[in-house]
């Protein structure tokens, strides 16, 4: 009861909601880059909110189904096909033993999620199936791998996400930022440089961090003794450029942080590729918590 990996793709890893409770040992949160697509994929299948999926970045991936089961593909449009026939994302789809699933190249967004009934049953590391290459916890999927699944159950074929929930990965992205950490150490003028410009996503961006290019913030505060960092923290390097820390980021660091990006905006950021433009705007803690709580409740109720 598996999916056999025929082509591994550029960067395809198993991820779940992440690894928690071990940050004091230096273990990153890890987990899916786009929580919106991930939660919808599991939701449509009636899975647990923590079930593991395959995160396919950019495409180039081919799998052979060795089981009859139901799947959902969510997130980026990477030209998903079953037996050479194009299929829609965001809906429950029955696959049969012997079917070939392919993802070619990015058409809209960069990360697609393959969810199967009950989630992939790959090896757990510290209570999570999430792979973190920086930490050498797990590895990319390899040609010949068997991605283990559970026996299939009846499913609601055709069940789809209502169209109004669909996000446009092409539209301009404004990241909502909480005034956290060393926000007060940045001067009025430095904040103006930060909020007043449109940044470009740099090439060196990955699951660890999104590096932004633009006008540098001048005379940034000095580096500090290392302290704990959270998902979405925005470090300002000595050269004055922002790095948004993502799921695979280290747990501590010493650059000053101008704020923290709201998590559901990071899900949108996960679908933007290098060269895309982003801006920042403020959000207050009450609004951020309300929005995130509503999101969580929607997928757990």
């Amino acid at each position, binding site marked *: 009861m598996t999916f056999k990996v025929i082509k591994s793709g550029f960067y395809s890893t198993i991820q779940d909601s992440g690894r928690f409770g*071990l940050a004091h040992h*230096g*273990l990153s949160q890890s987990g899916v880059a786009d929580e919106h697509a991930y939660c919808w994929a599991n939701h449509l299948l009636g899975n647990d909110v923590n079930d593991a999926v395959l995160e396919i970045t950019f495409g180039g991936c081919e799998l052979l189904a060795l089981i009859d089961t139901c799947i959902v593909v969510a997130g980026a449009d990477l030209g998903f096909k079953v037996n050479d026939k194009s299929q829609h994302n965001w809906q429950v789809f029955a696959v049969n033993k012997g079917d070939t699933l392919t993802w070619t190249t990015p058409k809209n967004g960069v990360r697609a999620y393959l969810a199967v009934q009950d989630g992939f049953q790959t090896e757990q590391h510290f209570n999570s199936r999430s792979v973190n290459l920086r930490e050498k916890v797990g590895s990319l999927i390899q040609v010949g791998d068997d991605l283990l699944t559970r026996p299939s159950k009846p499913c609601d074929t055709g069940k789809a996400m209502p169209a109004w929930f669909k996000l446009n990965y092409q539209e301009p992205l404004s990241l909502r930022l909480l005034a*956290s950490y060393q926000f007060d150490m940045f001067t009025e003028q430095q904040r103006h440089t930060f909020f007043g410009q449109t940044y470009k996503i740099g090439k060196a961006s990955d699951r660890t961090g999104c590096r932004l290019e633009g006008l540098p913030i001048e005379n940034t505060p000095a580096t500090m003794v290392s302290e704990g960092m*959270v998902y979405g*923290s925005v470090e300002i390097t000595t050269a004055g450029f922002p790095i948004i820390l993502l799921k695979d980021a280290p747990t501590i660091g010493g650059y000053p942080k101008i704020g*923290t990006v709201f998590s559901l905006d990071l899900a949108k950021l996960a679908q933007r590729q290098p060269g895309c433009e982003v801006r920042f705007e403020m959000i207050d803690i009450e609004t951020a918590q309300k929005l995130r709580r509503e999101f969580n409740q929607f997928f757990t109720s």
Partner: protein
Amino acid sequence: MFDIKLAGENAIIIYFGDESSPELAEQISFYTEFLHDSLGHLIIDIVPSYTSALITYDLNVVDHQTFCNQVSEALAKAIFVKQDHLSDLIEIPVYYDHEVGLDLERILVEKQLSLPEFIKLHSQPTYLIYTIGFSPAFAFLAEVDKRIRMPRLATPRIQVPAGSVGIADKQTAVYPIDSSGGWNIVGKTPIDLSLNDYDNLKRFMVGYRVKFKPINRQEYIALGGQF
């Protein structure tokens, strides 16, 4: 005294002081455990570091302001008790030599020390674990003797081999896995501190003490040391 700041939509950071010191490290270690005991049902992760502790919590059950109040109240009630972590002394064997200590030769010249003198200065102190991070089970140890302190390399190495023992200013550490890094490499432990052995994750805890034990080439090889 402490200062609580916002860190994220479900996170706060508590600053316990401005300057790191062994006393502050012990206090942070104590308060971290105390908060874990008193508010553990709300807490996802606590990351203690040199002067602070980062706490992430479950925003589905408690909001920011309520959580801050609960932390303040808990800390106000806490009475610091110096903990006896001496029983937790961890001994790490290290082979100090040019063939594994990539920066050793340069340091000896710069500091005008013989190899035995250097080994003595690095292996004699008992180091305190101030924080863990950078990579899993990477423990930041301090303080390194003034006579052998070296700043980070101007250009970090792309790959530092697992087991390498490094110095950066007053800190020293062992790299548990192959990783990039800018610390001055002075030796290597034959012990596997990587997550190949899951128990390694819990080998180091903030507040524990570490001592390096010099070993020779034969001992290094006998303990499984690689070149």
